[in-house]
């Protein structure tokens, strides 16, 4: 084994790197040589610790000492005191922000971990195609307890007490939904898992199904026991082939082990699950549309009531829950409602999984307690903005949501706070934008998506959104008028008020939200014909700076449409009528002689 007695881990995450972690490493290497310790102490650069705000961060092994805000000047002291004499450098230790106590021991070393994995507890730990690995980590134990030690009412009560709310978007209390469905009287009921996951950029549910399919199967079975259903259906988009395959394998194994089928675990309760494939229409994630799609009809929403809990699949009482909602259930039963409800904020309990994407360093899947701030998500866990650019906003709630800006950075994330900030929790897509993103273009992007996905049943949604889109197109093309802003607002409110389903009712949100926070950007497009982020092509103008142009003819030769003319060794000229704003000349010019006007 290795000859090193100690190891120094230096965070090489982008945030820490920006603040000298590389320099720190170099100083370590030099000084360790001087102290003749290079054969005993190994210096390693690691990935991000998720605590960038306190960077640069250093961890010393084997004693797990965690130093924050380290500078190259501190290295000598760390070596002399800690490595040589075995005494921690007190002033560099992390101080608990509340108690102001210094954290010495390796047991208290979790303070920098901002995530808790409940729904993702098994993702990345078990082989999803091996049921025994799931069982080894308390899999199906919750189901066993429910069937042999608890009544359906008792289970529902526990879920209600836990405070779990739906993770599919609306945040309806899960226990209450189960109770309502359990009270509906019918000869047949159904449990449906909504695995449609249509938000662009979201992949939480896919990851859970790919990494831990049994947790969803177990929870659906528990739900069946509670509401009195013996049949479950997973509605999953056909674009998720790996999730489908893992689910199929898991279902077969659960059946083989007697965990699905008749008389589960020796009880009188029987349950089985089938898969239904969706074609990937966003509106089919809406529960009534989803049910119609499963019935073989067009995936169009219908008026609620009746709610699925009264009349759902084939007219029978149906309980629809999201994948992540289900994934929380076994843990609530095993660890108890009190344990679960201790996590989170007053009205939003537990955790939320987010798919962190966009202009952020650590793109990935995260699970944070409700009440975590946006700043912690973006700057600690997410490692900050790519390329050291400026943070502009975060889009949550997908095409139904809105923007959170710097003003919301310190707002604890939960259902109520997001709503108050003019967006919504949604299913968990979180797209981070920087100074180079044009907010008008973003609103247009989401509307384009909604336009494609509207089922067309309601006029305001079908035609209203089209008109909204056209106005945005006009503005981004530089042909906007000031009164367009009022038109956008008015039309948005009409669409929200007069659409049948959540898609139409929320489709103008990206427009309203960008208008609320970034009206100045709209106005810059309209009044000055300028796109502040430099994104809207039609408003860009590439021009030659005559003083700098050497007449090398490189731009002339690379322009794909022949928009550039000029003699060798004389300033060139760009014909704006021909220019397609591809920016190749701008990139290629060696003399910075082409400017964005």
């Amino acid at each position, binding site marked *: 084994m290795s000859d090193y007695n100690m190891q120094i881990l230096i965070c090489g995450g982008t945030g820490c790197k920006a603040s000298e972690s590389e320099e720190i490493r170099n100083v370590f290497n030099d000084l360790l040589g001087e102290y003749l310790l290079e054969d005993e102490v190994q210096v390693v650069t690691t990935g*991000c610790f998720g605590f960038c705000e306190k960077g640069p961060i250093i961890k010393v092994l084997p004693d797990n000492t965690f130093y924050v805000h380290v500078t190259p000047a501190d290295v000598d002291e760390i070596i002399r005191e800690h490595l040589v004499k075995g005494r921690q450098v007190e002033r560099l230790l992390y101080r608990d922000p509340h108690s102001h106590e210094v954290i010495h021991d390796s047991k208290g070393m979790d303070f920098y971990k901002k995530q*808790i994995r409940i729904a993702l507890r098994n993702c990345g730990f078990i082989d999803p195609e091996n049921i025994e690995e799931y069982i*080894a980590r308390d899999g199906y134990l919750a189901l066993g307890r429910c069937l042999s030690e608890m009544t359906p009412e008792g289970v529902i009560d526990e879920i209600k007490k836990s405070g779990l709310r739906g993770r599919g978007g609306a945040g309806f209390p899960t226990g209450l939904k189960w109770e309502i469905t359990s009270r509906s009287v019918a000869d047949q009921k159904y449990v449906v898992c909504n695995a449609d996951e249509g938000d662009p950029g979201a992949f939480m549910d896919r*990851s859970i199904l790919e990494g831990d399919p049994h947790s969803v199967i177990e929870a659906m079975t528990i739900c069946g026991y509670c509401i009195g259903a013996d049949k479950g259906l997973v509605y999953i988009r056909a674009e998720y082939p790996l999730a489908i395959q893992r689910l199929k394998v898991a279902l077969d194994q659960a059946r083989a082990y007697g965990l699905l089928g008749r008389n589960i675990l020796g009880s009188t309760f029987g349950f089985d699950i089938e898969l239904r494939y969706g074609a990937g229409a966003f509106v089919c994630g809406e529960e009534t549309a989803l049910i119609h799609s499963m019935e073989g009809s067009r995936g169009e929403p219908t008026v609620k009531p009746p709610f699925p809990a009264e009349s759902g699949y084939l007219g029978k009482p149906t309980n629809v829950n999201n994948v992540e909602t289900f994934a929380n259930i076994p843990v609530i039963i095993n660890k108890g409602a009190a344990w679960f409800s201790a996590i989170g904020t007053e009205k939003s309990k537990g955790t939320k999984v987010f798919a962190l994407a966009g202009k952020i360093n650590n793109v990935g899947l995260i699970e944070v307690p409700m009440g975590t701030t946006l700043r912690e998500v973006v700057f600690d866990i997410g490692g900050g903005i790519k390329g050291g650019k400026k943070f502009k906003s975060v889009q949550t709630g997908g095409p139904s949501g809105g923007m959170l800006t710097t003003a919301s950075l310190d707002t604890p994330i939960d259902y109520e706070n997001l709503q108050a900030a003019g967006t919504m929790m949604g299913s968990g897509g979180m797209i981070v934008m920087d100074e180079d993103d044009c907010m008008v273009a973003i609103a247009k992007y989401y509307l384009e998506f909604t336009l494609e996905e509207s089922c067309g049943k309601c006029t305001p949604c079908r035609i209203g959104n089209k008109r909204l889109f056209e106005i945005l197109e006009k503005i981004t093309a530089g042909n906007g008028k000031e009164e367009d802003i009022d038109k956008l607002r008015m039309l948005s409110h009409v669409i929200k008020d007069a659409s049948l389903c959540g898609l139409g009712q929320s489709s103008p949100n990206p427009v309203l939200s960008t208008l609320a926070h970034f009206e100045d950007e709209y106005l810059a497009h309209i009044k000055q014909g300028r796109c502040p982020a430099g994104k809207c092509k039609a408003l860009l103008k590439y021009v030659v700076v005559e003083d700098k142009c050497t007449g090398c003819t490189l731009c002339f030769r690379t322009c794909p449409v022949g928009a550039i003319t000029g003699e060798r060794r004389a300033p060139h000229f760009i014909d704006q009528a021909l220019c397609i704003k591809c920016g190749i000349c701008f990139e290629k010019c060696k003399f910075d002689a082409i400017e964005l006007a």
Partner: protein
Amino acid sequence: MEKITSLADLKRIKEQVQSKIKLREQSASAEKLVQIRVGMATCGIASGAKETMSFLIEETEHQAIDAVITQTGCMGYCYAEPTVEVTLPGRQPVIFGHVNRERAREIIDRYIIKGELIDGMIPVNFKTIDE
């Protein structure tokens, strides 16, 4: 497979599975037994996790390293796919990111064989439900 027919039965199976894992960890060859998990969700596979996994299998076999190599789901570090977790006997699991063939070779030669740490390990940045 015999069906599990009661809660007690389920608990027994759980213990059996757990002791099977323990046994593997404590067996005569356990001193050398290396456990490797490759993140094989869509994101991992799209970044080449399958090739990484087959390379790890070939190379550990080739070098006669006693290793159990399994697939697992998404570890959440999508920016660093493919991700691989290595557990050396008696040590905490370590996660490596961006594991292509070259990185996989480095992990085997330096971490698994010599026990040295390697640049680019990913620190675990979340708590589990048991903490």
